[in-house]
């Protein structure tokens, strides 16, 4: 064993994941010919297979309208994964035999009945025990109908052996989310429904819970007595790329804030659950979301800034503005950036502002949660920066996952001047192994029937309700919530800085 190799991976870690075991089952993917299937789902399954986390009694049944055969489906997936297969052709050889395909149009009830028969044959062939996970990776307009067809065909009647995974977006406002929940809930029990939020699949988002509830030092100060404000940022450097069609109908508020940022907020702000059990955790998340409100619901323009990226970049590699992107309306008012201020009306957080922001084409790709603590009541020492810097706890979600704590120490030399320093924890330095892609974790959890990392109906509805005043305003009188242009690869419009400046604060410049 060469020294090189040993320092790259921990040789004792190989093949060791102590995971819960996934029961024999058939995973049915609707939308098997689509983008998500070959880009995320099948690669995640192959990864699970390579880690020996799938049972041998396992099958994947791909479904979509086009009339592929099993062989064609296998071939297409093989092409899409060519790079990974090269690393382990033997594993692919074994894995690919578990892939099957059945042409199904979700809008045709008889197709779904036929699917039931195919599944019984697969049970016979692969001993998958009549245990099934249905993954709806199709356009959101099929979510309701798809669930209904599955229920009508009797495929959801056993709550222990059938579950449905629903991709994002779940609804496009409070009303549509409620309507969709109503349909979905007539098709199966809540614990059979797994609404994906891929941010919850991220190790570091889960780590916020561990940090808070597995340690005694944080919880006592995790409240309004010690924390003065919270910032939650999810910044992307990319533009809209090929997703203009979808993005034009959605915008940053729907695409990022309502789901991912709100989930980060819920996990950061929730009360400690009584026990580590999916329902207990989801109860607390739903409760905190129900207590959350826009800082100014009557005049939302005071607490929310929308932005849209304009051109930018350098002379050598210029970047075009959003309105010039292929597929985008040249007069589009779709926001690619949102910043807003929220309050949580409960004992823990009364009066503590939560600032959230997200945008495309920002200066850096990063997601983080920053908790700023109150200042020391008396300033005993001269500080290098004039006043002492407030303590900050920074939870870095991506990239360079980890946490950082910023506090004052004595600066060297005579006298008693203080200056801030950072205490760091980095996943890479401590574990040195890349964490799983979010979809690996979420697919495994869905197949394990573990709903902890999926959003429950009341959470989704509370999140939509929270942003209803904004959505209505954008719909009815968009001029009151204008999209401020900002230069590509900067930190967003100046108006967003002004939002914090009014409270005497700054966005953290990471």
């Amino acid at each position, binding site marked *: 064993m060469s020294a090189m190799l040993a*320092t790259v991976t921990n040789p004792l870690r190989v093949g060791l994941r*102590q995971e819960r075991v996934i029961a024999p089952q058939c995973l049915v993917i609707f939308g098997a010919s689509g983008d998500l299937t070959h880009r995320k789902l099948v690669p995640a399954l192959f990864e699970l297979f390579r880690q020996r986390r799938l049972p*041998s*009694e396992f099958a994947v049944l791909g479904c979509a309208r086009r009339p592929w055969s099993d062989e064609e489906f296998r071939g297409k997936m093989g092409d899409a994964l060519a790079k990974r297969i090269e690393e382990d052709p033997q594993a692919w050889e074994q894995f690919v035999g578990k892939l099957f395909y059945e042409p199904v149009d979700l809008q045709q009830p008889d197709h779904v009945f036929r699917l039931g028969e195919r599944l019984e044959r697969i049970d016979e062939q692969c001993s998958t025990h009549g245990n099934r996970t249905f993954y709806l990776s199709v356009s959101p307009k099929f979510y309701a109908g798809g669930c209904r067809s599955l229920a009508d065909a009797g495929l959801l*009647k056993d709550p222990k052996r059938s579950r449905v995974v629903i991709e994002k977006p779940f609804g496009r406002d409070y009303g549509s989310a409620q309507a969709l929940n109503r349909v979905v809930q007539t098709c199966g029990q809540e614990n059979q429904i797994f609404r994906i939020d891929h941010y919850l699949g991220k190790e570091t988002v889960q780590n916020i819970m561990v940090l808070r509830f597995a340690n005694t030092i944080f919880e006592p100060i995790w409240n309004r007595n010690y924390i003065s404000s919270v910032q939650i940022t999810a910044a992307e450097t990319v533009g809209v790329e090929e997703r203009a069609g979808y993005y034009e109908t959605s915008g940053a508020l729907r695409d990022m804030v309502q789901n991912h940022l709100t989930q980060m907020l819920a996990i950061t702000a929730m009360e400690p659950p009584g026990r580590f059990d999916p329902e207990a955790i989801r109860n607390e998340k739903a409760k905190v979301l129900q207590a959350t409100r826009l800082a100014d619901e009557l005049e939302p323009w005071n607490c929310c800034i929308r932005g849209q990226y304009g051109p930018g970049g350098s002379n050598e590699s210029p970047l075009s503005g959003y309105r010039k992107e292929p597929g985008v309306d040249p007069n589009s008012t779709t926001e690619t950036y949102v910043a807003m201020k929220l309050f949580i009306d409960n004992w823990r957080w009364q009066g503590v502002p939560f600032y959230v922001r997200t945008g495309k084409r920002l200066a850096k790709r990063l997601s983080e949660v920053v908790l700023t603590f109150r200042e020391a009541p008396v300033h005993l020492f001269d500080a290098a920066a004039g006043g002492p810097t407030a303590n900050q706890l920074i939870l870095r979600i991506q990239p360079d996952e980890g946490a950082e704590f910023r506090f004052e120490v004595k600066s060297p030399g005579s006298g008693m001047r203080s200056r801030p320093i950072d205490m760091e924890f980095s996943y890479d*330095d401590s574990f040195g192994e890349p964490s799983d892609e979010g979809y690996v974790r979420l697919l495994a959890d869905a197949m394990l029937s573990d709903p902890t990392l999926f959003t429950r109906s009341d959470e989704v509805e509370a999140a939509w309700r929270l942003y209803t005043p904004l959505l209505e305003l954008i719909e009815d009188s968009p001029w009151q919530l204008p999209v401020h242009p900002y230069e590509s690869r900067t930190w967003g419009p100046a108006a967003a800085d002004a939002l914090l400046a009014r409270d005497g604060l700054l966005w953290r410049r990471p």
Partner: protein
Amino acid sequence: MSPQLTLQTPLELAPADVPTYLEQLWSPEQQGSTGTGANTFCLLIWQPAWAEQHLIRTGRLNGPITGQQSDQLVAAGQQAVIDADLPSGTPPLAEAVISAVAGWDGINPSEDLRGQYIDPALSALQPRRLITLAPMIEADHPLETLVAAYCPLPEEGGGTTACGDVVVLRGSQNALEEGLAILQPLLPARMPAWVWWNGSLDEAPDLLDQLAGTPRRLILDSAVGTPRQCLDLLRTRVQSGQAVNDLNWLRLSNWRETLAMVFDPPQRREALNHITQMEIDVESNHPAQGLLLAAWIADRLGWKLISSDSDDEAINARFTRGDGVEVRFQLMSVPVGQPSVHPGQMVGLRLICKPDSSPGVCVILCTESGGCMRLESGGMADLELHEEIVPVQNRTPEMDVARLLGGGHDTTNPLLASAAPLAASLLP
């Protein structure tokens, strides 16, 4: 949760009638009354329960005979160790205890419910067919066959009940061996079949061969039987290419995890290339588990075995690392106050790493339940010390088996497949 009993009282049938009866039970015409046959797996259990049978016969344990590992059974075994004046480190259900109790008088009768008592961890998996081979201590008991349909009680929330059946073959060991012919038709090829050898690997080797041929998936425990036989059998079975699961190996998982954790931070990994010494302490006189752990480490780090020998106290072996440097290995049995039911459980592990340039590192892993004084003493003054406590796993064999069946693989875990042959060579 207490074990579930079959819903019906089992029907006693002539052995020859069993296959036909079961076929009829699941025929389409009958399905209305019995539910549908679960399309899951079959499990065949060799269930001698010698210790339990003798302890009940001698009035040291209350019946019925169930074949399950209960707290009462373990307590009765512990008492027997004392009464038979066996060394205090003797595991409560060890071979020596069985032979001692077998020599004691007693004719307490008891009901024999082996195969009808189903651990909830197993019944939750809805096995399609559970076949129990229950050898009796009476030397000339003729073969009896019992059959019952069985549905796990539908839990709240409805859902379909997939059903299974249980078949019990009971009689003296000879009678059982003669009755084996009826088994073949009872294990349909279209479903995975598992064989759990829930007894010593020393007994009935021919029977084991007959029952556990490929493609059946074998579950055994390399802590039960003489170490030589255990490790050789494990090696042969693994090399035959069938799926082999060793409960003794499974019980090591916390050790593997904890050791890997020590070397997760990249800056520590370099030390793995410079191990010069590895020591392992185990309970009682059964080195199989300790050798499996040593073999796993050696295999992962690419060491080659040079030699291995033993004296009264220890097994000593030498390896060479990839860079040619020698690694010395020693395994010792150490006395413990309250030995585990499983012979030869790990007590402690010590690795000494001596890199050329940086200071040396000593890693000690120690079980939660006992001290590892021997490993903590001596020779490490100038080394950087990492000590970790390994949590004890308190799972019954039934729970471990359910875990295996629940996420079944049709091949042997690759880590075990590499470690098993090396462990067998490590035993002098």
